């Protein structure tokens, strides 16, 4: 089919674009090279032997994993709601969904405290009814991460839903499928790549979360001290340990991303 396809002038883009493209690439990769070059590889085993490192890594993976599941469970229906035809106030709703994306994470942490803190709008009745307080717990870490990560998933899935062909859903509906069946058997499989890439984005954002977490959840080894918080604190006492933690976090995220890519994204 594609033998001897005539080359058309102007297709393929101007060559001059490769210059800023390469500068962009160098800008993204350069700092990582700096990190890898300066890492004290020989002392790495000794630096990472600290049980606090394993604690922080485990906490980071568990909390960001739960936050991602939470994002999928809440975010996919939210994205679905946003694309419903005739939804009143759609642009306002979408703007509200995007707010945590543009807001500094520390502000997000303060906002979570104002809602769920010990003196928070919902925190006070929650403590009165159940005796539970959320700040300084692993739950707070998960909530802070989900709060900043959810918009990434919603926007990604919303885009996928918007570009999906609605005729499949209509066909299924005319063949007698009820709404839930259409959503479950047609809509979700149709936008699965969008959900997967949204989940990966949300997970990456959750894993790197710092500002909202230290503000809302604080920092305690094994309970609320995630890898980014541990890196920040280590930078003050022992920069070598901070570098070691950073390469571990870098390695784990790249590894997981590569695994997920093979599994789901490129299908």
């Amino acid at each position: 089919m594609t033998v001897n396809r005539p080359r058309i002038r102007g297709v393929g883009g101007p060559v001059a674009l490769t210059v800023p493209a390469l500068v962009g690439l160098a800008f993204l990769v350069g700092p990582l090279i700096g990190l890898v070059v300066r890492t004290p590889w020989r002392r790495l085993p000794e630096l990472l032997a600290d049980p606090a490192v394993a604690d922080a890594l485990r906490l980071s993976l568990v909390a960001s994993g739960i936050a991602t599941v939470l994002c999928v469970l809440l975010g996919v229906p939210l994205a679905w709601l946003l694309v419903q035809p005739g939804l009143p106030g759609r642009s306002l709703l979408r703007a509200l969904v995007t707010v945590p994306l543009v807001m500094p994470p520390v502000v997000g942490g303060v906002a979570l405290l104002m809602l769920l803190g010990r003196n928070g709008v919902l925190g006070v009745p929650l403590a009165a009814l159940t005796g539970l307080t959320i700040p300084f717990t692993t739950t707070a870490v998960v909530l802070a991460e989900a709060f900043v990560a959810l918009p990434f998933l919603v926007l990604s899935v919303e885009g996928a839903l918007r570009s999906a062909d609605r005729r499949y859903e209509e066909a299924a509906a005319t063949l007698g499928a009820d709404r839930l069946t259409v959503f479950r058997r047609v809509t979700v499989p149709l936008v699965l790549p969008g959900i997967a890439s949204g989940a990966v984005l949300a997970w990456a954002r959750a894993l790197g979360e710092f500002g909202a977490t230290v503000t809302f959840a604080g920092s305690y080894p094994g309970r609320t001290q995630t890898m980014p918080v541990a890196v920040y604190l280590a930078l003050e006492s022992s920069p070598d340990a901070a570098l070691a933690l950073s390469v571990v976090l870098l390695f784990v995220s790249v590894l997981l991303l590569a695994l997920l890519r093979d599994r789901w994204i490129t299908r």
Partner: protein
Amino acid sequence: MSRRLPRGVAPLLTMLLLIPAAGCSSIGVAGQRVTVFAASSLTEAFRTVRADFERRHPDTDVVLSFGSSATLARQLLQGAPADVFAAADRRTMGMVTNVGLAPKDPPTFARNQLQIAVPAGNPGRVRGLPDLARAELAVVLCAPTVPCGAAAQDALRAADLKVLPDSYEKDVKAAMAKVVLGEVDAALVYRTDVLAAGDKVVGVELPAVARVVNDYPVAILNAAANPQAARAFVAYLRSPVGQRALSEAGFEIP
């Protein structure tokens, strides 16, 4: 079509043109600028000192940058441009003087003590240091890597107490914020922070045995861009007027 791009770009260009203009005007009018890196516990006191100093030296602009002393020391080691460094303890100052970024043994210009900060009304009924060990109380300490955290560990060790806090905060202001917001029943902070927080926070004294005193050293960096203005600022800080401002903020005078 051709109008769309310029429309988006024009405000951006205007902003880019205005930023250097704004910078120039402040330099042009003020003459010189002295950049001071100061421990976050100095926030309120140094803002007062700056106002007084600038009134007496109208040609000098004081730029204050606050953070945990450890963070600031780290930034200086990475080449952050500053003229003066005021740290909350000798250890963090040592990070800077030991590598020759500033003269050794800089003078102490103030001293500070720890106090227990509790929210107004004292919901946890904290009467003294041993109360911090009560499991049902929400308590935060500073991370042991920053001066207030190191001092807190010293105080607890001296009192032979084991406290498991709910969080190790990244600097004294972060710990204070948790008290001001009423999220915790108590935090170990500096006396000056309790004083600065006004009536939202009440201070509870530590027992004499656990009284840890932090020396605050101040140094002029060897790489100071403006050593003359830096010397003037440090001299002012150590003058009777500067010392009175620090004393009013709750610092002890050496």
